[in-house]
């Protein structure tokens, strides 16, 4: 269920917070994916 926002501050805090967490996950995920993609290059 979506949270209820009473102010723009609430909205921005929530959405930016979630987005920043996703950015960190993306950076980690892209690094792991790069290892997966190039893992067999040396073979």
């Amino acid at each position, binding site marked *: 269920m*979506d949270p209820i926002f009473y102010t723009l501050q609430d*909205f921005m805090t929530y*959405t930016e917070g*979630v987005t920043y967490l996703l950015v960190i996950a993306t950076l980690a995920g892209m690094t792991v994916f790069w290892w*997966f*993609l190039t893992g067999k290059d040396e073979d």
Partner: protein
Amino acid sequence: MAQVTTGERKSIFSLFNLIALIVLGVGVYLTYLRFTGGLASVTNLSDYNPWGIWISFDLLCGVALAAGGYVTSSAVYLFGMKKYHSAVRPAILTGFLGYALVFLAINYDVGRPWRLPYPLVVQQGTTSVLFEVGLCVATYLTVLFIEFSPAAMEWLGLKRARSLVVKLTILLTIFGVVLSTMHQSSLGALFLIVPSKLHPLWYSSYIPIYFFVTSIIAGLSMVIFESTLSHRFFAYKMDETHLQEANGLTLGFGKAASYVLAGYFAIKVLGISAGNQWHYLTTGYGTWYLVELLGFVALPSLLYAFGVRTKSLTLIKFTSVLAILGVILNRFNISLVAFNWHLPASERYFPHWMEIGISVFIVMIGLLLYRFIVTRMPILYEHPDYKDAH
């Protein structure tokens, strides 16, 4: 050692030629109807839906799918990946024909072809994104023509002119990248003006970035797909260099496409998060959005990756088709399916069969021109007089 193969001569009465003849015949008739009877005589366009599949497919998809030219030439000439050199000419040719056909197709939509230069020489709408798109496409078509011209000059024996143009290669490549970056993203920026008409899942202030990134995906995938088709139908025209580099090209471009697709998937998810649009995902449009995002972005990214790791060329070639369909689906979703999503079904646009007929006609012209050029000019092989002269 590179060598020119003369190739086999096939009968003119083939199934493809028969189909081509029918499509061209119908296309010429539809062209006559369009330019004598106006848009209403051949299209379902209306004031609510002034842009139909001629924009969605011929222009938005055509420009994206022609991105192989700048992607390949920048990889080879700017990033120094010389092992993909044999792919440059086919990619430039595909790009040049793609943009030339976009130019042809826009005449059907706009009408009055003699007025096409007006935005450049009569009334410059310098505050319009569409002006920037038009200017970039016109300039880039010229750049692609010059980039393609050495092949034609080698065929015609114009050695001095060819050596002059070849000296401009790096400059033209830089022009190509700059102009492509601008207009590929600007095509997305055209939709920034319709936040109330485009479904929130597809509308984003980042849409120009999405368009640019997907053009790279389309370019990489198109080079793999075009290479596959060329090997199927024009292998007899290829020299040994071209044949030897083909597998490395498929693996290298497949790897790049996989990573770009993964990045695109990530920024799309971040876009949903930044707009807090998660709740739309549970609606009907949300399901369709997930089909596009998971089935035509995430899936091809993973399939490319598995194909690269297992060195499965078949899987990579199959995935290139999936990725291309994904870009086409994305452009159709943005310009047709999710566009005017508030309107009742009776007011929604569905193309007239004659609109589809003209799009097929234009694609057929492209196929025939590609075949004409590839079977005559040194596209898939190095001309014996200019070996290693790049």
